């Protein structure tokens, strides 16, 4: 089922959570709503679910206006950040709840419900927890139960609000892959909210970057990462070095009004000056950042620069703190100064 969001506006008092926002989500798509806290992404998700109503604008499911259709009749599955499992019901009762509250005419008999519940629990690899209470499960297990519960009613749309936000890093990574797989199996139109750019880029077919109630950019993970439409997107999707000035021939020449963003892995380091490495800097520190090495540099002209190198390259260079090196940028992007939101961008280098 496709979702159309048409000029939706939502205010809480004087705070504008969503500002005339429009978005089309194709049937079967897996979309991430990515943004900082307070950007309006959760509000948008709750409006799609019918848990909040828009002050203005419409939400359509396959072209049908959902205004006036309550959350219970929209046929969506919703997964909450803190699971929201029914604490006094067993895992099986939780998963079967959506089927057991149906009106008599459409309610399956208990045996059929039980069958379906066990099928879903096997799918999330938790069939052995059927008769336990939620508080006896770990966070990751609870969230899988919550997903099974949402899927039990065969929703046409699956909505997830920061589904992995309360879990630790390892479980989170596991569940991300699992969500991706699940989506491939079921093909249900899925929208999930996250503030974690890595999660959005890794899981989604399409990333919608939201800031202050409007869409900054929507596109494939490659597109938004490689071609950020705005300084906000560039900065929000990963670390950047910020230079106040315009880069000419890989030289940071000062032109006060403009701002240049360089990602740390686009910073190159050489021991000898050459055509593309012409900024003098001192090594301040070298450390491991997972699969890469992080190098902290200080330009001789002043200001810090962060670089990410492969371990192999770092060994080749044999960098030592205090050493003098030459720095160049393989990729960078310059924005007119007035398009850069103040405050949102910390200055690595001036």
């Amino acid at each position, binding site marked *: 089922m496709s979702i159309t969001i048409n000029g939706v506006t939502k205010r809480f008092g004087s705070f504008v959570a969503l500002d005339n926002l429009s978005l089309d989500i194709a049937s079967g798509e897996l979309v991430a709503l990515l943004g900082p806290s307070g950007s309006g992404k959760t509000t948008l998700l709750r409006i799609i*679910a*019918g*848990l909040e109503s828009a002050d203005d604008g419409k939400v359509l499911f396959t072209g049908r206006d959902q205004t006036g259709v*309550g*959350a*219970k*009749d*929209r046929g*969506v*599955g*919703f997964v*909450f950040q*803190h699971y*929201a*499992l*029914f*604490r*006094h019901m067993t895992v099986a009762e939780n998963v079967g*709840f*959506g089927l057991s*509250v*149906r009106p008599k005419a459409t309610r399956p008999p208990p045996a059929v419900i039980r069958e379906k519940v066990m099928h879903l629990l096997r799918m999330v690899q938790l069939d052995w927890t059927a008769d336990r*209470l*939620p*508080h006896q499960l*770990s*966070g*990751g297990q609870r969230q899988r139960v919550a997903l099974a*519960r*949402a899927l039990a*009613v065969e929703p046409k749309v699956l909505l997830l609000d920061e589904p992995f936000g*309360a*879990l*630790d890093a*390892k*479980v989170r990574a596991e569940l991300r892959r699992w969500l991706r797989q699940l989506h491939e199996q079921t093909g249900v139109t899925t929208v999930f909210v996250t503030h974690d750019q890595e999660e959005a880029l890794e899981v989604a077919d399409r990333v919608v970057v939201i800031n202050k109630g409007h869409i900054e950019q929507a596109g494939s993970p490659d597109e938004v990462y490689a071609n950020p439409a705005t300084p906000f997107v560039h900065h929000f999707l990963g670390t950047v070095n910020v230079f106040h000035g315009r880069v000419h021939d890989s030289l940071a020449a000062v032109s006060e009004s403009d701002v240049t963003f360089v990602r740390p892995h686009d910073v190159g380091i050489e021991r000898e000056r050459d055509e593309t490495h012409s900024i003098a800097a001192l090594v301040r520190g070298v450390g491991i950042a997972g699969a890469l090495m992080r190098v902290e540099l200080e330009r001789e002209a002043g200001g810090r620069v962060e670089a990410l190198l492969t371990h192999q390259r770092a060994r080749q260079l044999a960098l030592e703190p205090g050493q003098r090196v030459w720095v160049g940028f393989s990729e960078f992007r310059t924005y007119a100064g007035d398009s850069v939101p103040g405050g949102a961008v910390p200055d690595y280098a001036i």
Partner: protein
Amino acid sequence: MNSSHSEPAWVRRTLIGSALAAMAVVLVVPLVAVFWEGLAAGWQVYWAAVTDPDARHAIWLTLLAAAISLVINGVAGIAAAWAIAKFRFPGRSLLITAIELPFSVSPVVVGLLFVLLFGSHGWFGAWLQSHDVRVIFAMPGIVLATLFITFPFVVRELLPVMEAVGSEEEEAARVLGARGWQILWRITLPNVKWGLMYGLILCSARAIGEFGAVSVVSGHIRGETNTMPLHVEILYNDYQYNAAFACASVLCLTALVTLVLKAVVEWRAERALNQAKVKGGVEA
């Protein structure tokens, strides 16, 4: 005993000892005395006093008023606590204060208030009389006064529990297709059942024991509008001490029963809370 307490042992012993002594004088001795005096003239007198028709009627009326209060205040308390806990609306804090009003007004004033409203010279007195409805010096007045006095208990116990539980489970149920009544019976009430039980127990204890407000509106008609506490007072004023204490001991028994129930509910509620805490804890 927490080892961080640095007071010397004799200070602790003195404090605990004097607290226990005070409790014995104020609580235990009178309680024992009630039973002692009630049984002083023998079991037969005791039994006769308790099974006297006036006494039986008083017991019945007391339990009836308590039962009506339980039902009405239970339903109204759930509704009020739910509205206050889940919604933000203008006048919300005023409503919370207003709900506590019966606690801060003297029961006698509450009784007079109902006489002023429904008595024969009261605001609605003439209208009620013309329709042949008796409120004051009759059962409805007693029920009204009891209702008013016991209204805050359920709300006060439910409100913090409902606020702690939050709305997410109800939202989850709604998205899964549950209707309003299904959410109430299957999600909201099971989540607050221990708080509700506790509130109802306090409500019934107070309803059974209420004297001041009921005394003003009842008119003390023996075998008609006397509740247990009023019956005890009348017997006492008639110098029938043994009978008075016998009936008083029945009241004490109901109090002891509610005390035990209260302890059980508290214990269960605490266990439920601990489980909820484990549930809320961050683990993976």
